[in-house]
Each structure stands twice: as C-alpha cells, then as structure tokens.
C-alpha cells in the first residue's frame, strides 16, 4: 500500500507542474475568453461590468453580429482557403525534400535536417521583413518578372503587398513543419518493401504510389495539421506583406482586441476560429482514416 501511495505521489510530482501550467495559462484564459464573448463591450474599450444594477449582463449580441455581417464569414472562408493552399504547397515542396533526406546517406541526413530548421535561428518577424526586400519593386526578382512581362506587352505587376506575397511567405514559414514529420515517417520505411514491390513487378511510380505514399500518410496528416492550424490564425504575414484585400481572420481578431477594442467580438471570432480548426482537423483525420482503410481493403 505504502509503495503504491509512493508511486502515486511520484506520478503527481512529475505531471503536476505541467498540468498546473496548462490550467493557469491555457484553460483559465480560454474560459475567461469564452465568458468575455457573452459580455458587453465597455464604453471605452475592454468589457462593461459583469454585474450592473444588480443584473448579470450576459448576452449573445456579439454572436448575432458575426452572423449578421457577411464580411466576417467571407474572411473566414478566405482564411481557410489560404491555409489550405499553404498546406497543399508545403506538401508538394516538402514531400520530395523529405524523401531526398530520408534516402540520402546517413551521415548527410543530420546536415540536411539542420538546413531545414536553420531559418528558426533567426526571428520570425525578421524573416517576414526579409521577404519585403526580396519581393520589393526594385529587387532583382520583381525587375526580372516585369521585364519578361513587358516583353510580352504586359503591364508591370507588383509582387509585394499582394496575395502572392502572403502565400509565398506562408509556405516559406511553414515548410519545416511539414518536412519534419514527413521525414520522421519516411526515414523509418523498410526498404525491403520496395525491393519486394519491384520484384513483384512494380515500376518506380507504382512503388511510390502503392507502397511509399500510403505508408507515409500518418506523416502527411501530422504535417498537414502542423501547417494548417497555425496558417489559419496567422496575422503578421498579411499585415506586413499583404495588400488591403489580404486581411485574414487573424488580422480581424487582432484588430478587435488592439484597435477597435471590442473584446467580446474578438473573443467570439477567436472561439469560432478555434472550433473551426478543431472541426476541420477532426474531419481530415476521420476522412484520412476511412480513406486509408478503403485503400487497404481494395488493394
């Protein structure tokens, strides 16, 4: 008995601090935000008192506002679209890269992985600002593109402050989050399976499509979740590199808290965003599992 009590104590000593941290800095703030979404904005920003004239002031006004104005729904849809595009381009770029790293000589792999995570060594905002220079109107890239366009008799286009700039930077920033889980998966593949597939008559494409790709799906899902969810809530990149049309839901939320100072509405947007991200991730996981099952039985 004493031993078991001791083991229990040890378990709580180990898992207690991180649990406490999550409760204080994640669970409680989330509850505060949920509560704030039902309150009334204060006259000069922030929140109006919770209890006024002996009455509890809780209402659904901010939720009603979200539904009454189509512009917010449009921004939500646009944000999901940008996040999906980012996930797709990251996957298209990261897959060959991860495969290359996983198949390269063991002594080169660490170096290649290091190169993938090297950008993390400089600040996120600095890297975003760097894109301003790369895409700027006087930079070599814009000049080259526009001189080619001019040759075809096309008007020059600005690269900076555009959806293009936002997407390029979104993909750039999130690429490592796709590469790492994909690499971790691909690196563990049993190469004997590819030999077996080849022996059984599969050509290079069939070996990839029938063996490597289906076995890598857990890595694809993990990478997609790690890219899609942060990309959905991002605000710095559209702020710095986007045009006026490129405001995403993250920008609107930031605006509600810092500029308009409408905390209840900002809270509503945040809650809807969180729930939407969870739903989409859950849906993707469910769909993926079902799809994987079907592939297995049909194969």
């Amino acid at each position: 008995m004493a031993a078991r009590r001791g083991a229990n104590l040890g378990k709580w000593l180990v898992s207690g601090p991180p649990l406490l941290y999550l409760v204080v800095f994640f669970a409680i703030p989330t509850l505060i935000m949920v509560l704030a979404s039902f309150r009334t904005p204060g006259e000069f920003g922030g929140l109006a008192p919770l209890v006024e004239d002996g009455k509890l002031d809780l209402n659904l006004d901010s939720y009603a506002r979200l539904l009454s104005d189509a512009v917010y729904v449009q921004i939500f849809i646009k944000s999901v679209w940008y996040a999906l595009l980012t996930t797709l381009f990251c996957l298209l770029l990261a897959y060959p890269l991860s495969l290359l790293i996983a198949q390269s000589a063991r002594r080169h792999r660490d170096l290649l992985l290091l190169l993938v995570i090297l950008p993390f060594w400089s600040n996120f905002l600095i890297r975003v600002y760097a894109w301003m220079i790369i895409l700027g109107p006087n930079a070599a890239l814009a000049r080259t593109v526009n001189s080619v366009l001019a040759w075809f008799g096309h008007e020059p286009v600005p690269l900076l402050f555009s959806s293009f700039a936002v997407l390029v930077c979104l993909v750039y920033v999130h690429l490592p989050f796709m590469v790492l889980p994909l690499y971790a998966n691909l690196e563990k593949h049993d190469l004997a399976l590819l030999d077996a597939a080849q022996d059984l008559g599969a050509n290079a494409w069939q070996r990839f499509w029938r063996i490597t790709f289906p076995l890598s799906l857990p890595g694809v899902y993990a990478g997609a979740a790690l890219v899609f969810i942060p990309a959905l809530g991002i605000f710095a990149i559209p702020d710095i590199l986007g045009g006026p049309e490129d405001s995403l839901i993250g920008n609107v939320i930031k605006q509600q808290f810092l500029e308009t100072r409408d905390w209840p509405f900002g809270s509503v947007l945040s809650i809807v965003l969180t729930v939407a991200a969870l739903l989409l991730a859950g849906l993707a996981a469910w769909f993926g599992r079902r799809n994987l099952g079907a592939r297995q039985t049909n194969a």
Partner: protein
Amino acid sequence: MALLEIQNVTRRFGTFTAVDQVSISIEAGEFFTLLGPSGCGKTTLLRMIAGFDLPDGGSIRLNGEDLAGLPPERRPVRTVFQSYALFPHMTVEGNIAFPLQMAKTPASDIPAKVDAALEDVRLTGFGKRYPHELSGGQKQRVAIGRALVTHPTVLLLDEPLAALDAKLREEMQIELINLQKEVGITFVYVTHDQTEALALSHRIAVMNKGRVEQLDEPSKIYSFPNSRFVADFIGTCNLLDGPVLKVDEGTVTIDVGGLGPVRVASSDRPTAGQTASIALRPEKIRIAGAAAQDAAANHFRGSVTDLLYLGDVTVYKVSTESGTKLEALLANSAAGRTKFFEIGDAVAVSWPVDAGHFIPR
C-alpha cells in the same frame, strides 16, 4: 539446355570478390539450393538472378534469354525475402493481389487467382487479415503465395525459414517440398542451414568464398564430400589428415598424425607422400567395450572424454591412446545398443575401410 544458366558470373565489391566465376545450370522443375556460410556469396548470387544486383562478369540466362538488360520488375522471377517484406498496409488478399495488379490482370480474374493462391499455401479464410495479425509461419506462407500467384518461371527463396522456430521450420520444410512438387516451379533456395539443404533439395551447390566447392545431390554431398570444407560444413565430420602412405588397388592408406596408418576405400590413385584427408562421419564409427575384438580395418583404443545425450542418439567424444579426438554417434534404440558408456570408460573405436571418404588435397 537448362532453364537457368549461370555462366562464369563474377561480382566484386571493391577489392572483395563476393562471387567468383560461378557457373551453375539449373533444370526446370528442380529444387536447387545454394548452401554456404554467411559471406560465401550465395545471397549476392540470388540478388543477381532477381536483378537487384548486376554481375561484373559472366551471364545469367533464363530460357536462353540473357537477363542482363531486364530490371527486377520485368524478370519472370519472384523472390521470397527473409524478412517476408509483406506490405503492412494491405490485407493478405491485397498482398497476394499486388503482383497480379502489376501484371495488369483483369480485375474480374483477380479474386479467383487470389483464392487459389491462398489454398496453395493453406491460408483459406485469412484473406481479410493484416500482416500484423498473422504468426511468423502464416506471414511466411503469404510471402510464398504472393510470389507464386503469377506463376513465375523461377522462385527464389532467401533463407525463408530462418526466422521460424525449429518445429515450425520442419513443418514448413515438408510443406515447401509438397508445394514445389504441386506447382512444378523451379525453386532456387538459399540457406546456411545444411540440414535444411539436405532435406529439401534435389541438388545442392555448396559455396565458399564466392566459389562453388561442390555441386551434387544431397546424399552425394553428404557421403562423398570433395573437399575438407564441404566435409566440415555439411554435418559433423571427423577429418583425419596426413601424408599418403600406400596406394593399393581400391584402398589408400594415410599416416594420420598421432593415430598411425588409416585405410580408406578409394578409386583415386594419389602419389605417396601427398597430403590428404579422410572424412569420417560420426555415425560410421563403431564403439565397443575395450575388451571387444574387432576385425575392422581400422581400430583404435581410447576413452570417453565427453558425451551428449540427445534423446534419440548419444554423441561420444573419444580420445584415443595417442590423443587424437574422434566423435562417434550411437543410436539409443534398444536394437542397436548393447551398452551405454560413461565418461572415463575405456572403449575401442573402429570402422571399416569403406566408412570413410578419401579427400585428396
């Protein structure tokens, strides 16, 4: 002409010659085994037949056609891998259907062929299972069924039973023999296990250091090894070395160090003085109480130094008066046994001239 002609095949890795000028002809319908210790080149040779590796010299012809230009996926040859290499994300059916799909078999024909393959390897009813739900022996059967479903010309098996426990291995050996008879496909089997090779094969090529030491039927390889290596590698063998003392009609006498003259039947006519060996299987040695009179050509006195009781047989290690160690094997069945010996007992060991096998050097 043989079905599979391996001619002067050589494969080098840097300065190491893994396969050295190997020539083997394998007939259609044969169960052929490449036997040898690890590193002898047998797996490299198998991979060259499958197409995963290419010879540096020589040629491999199947039905008269040179395979050199064909990648593995286009050779009418299938491999059963040591690790089974079943596709973990596909069911048993999916695994077996895979080569059919690669061969563009009409989808409507696939289920019947898969069922037939499952029946061949006695896995009917297991089609919907995933590899991780199968035992080692069942995985092995799936791997074999998957390799056979397209009726390849040659089936290559790379130590397929190595991962199974002894009892299951024996069962699978019998099944392999029956299966091979049933389907009539040529099997090329790689193993380092000599009992497995003897049990399964029509013919065996014993390989050592990239070369074929001896190529023959199992009973010939066992009874008439043509080198010290083969004698030592196949089963247990007493090897008696020494210079040739005398050559008579049908027998050779060797002066074995420490033991004296030993006579062995041989049609060889070596020159006197040349070193040679006699390979003497433990079960060919008779062992009797020290007082027994024995008329056999070769008899020596000694004492039991060790014994291993193995249930059906007992292995005796006998040290002769001159210190030479011999291994003798006696069946424990009542009929063949008059006496059990203990460690330290004085015994007489003897064997007739035709018990040993003469190996010239």
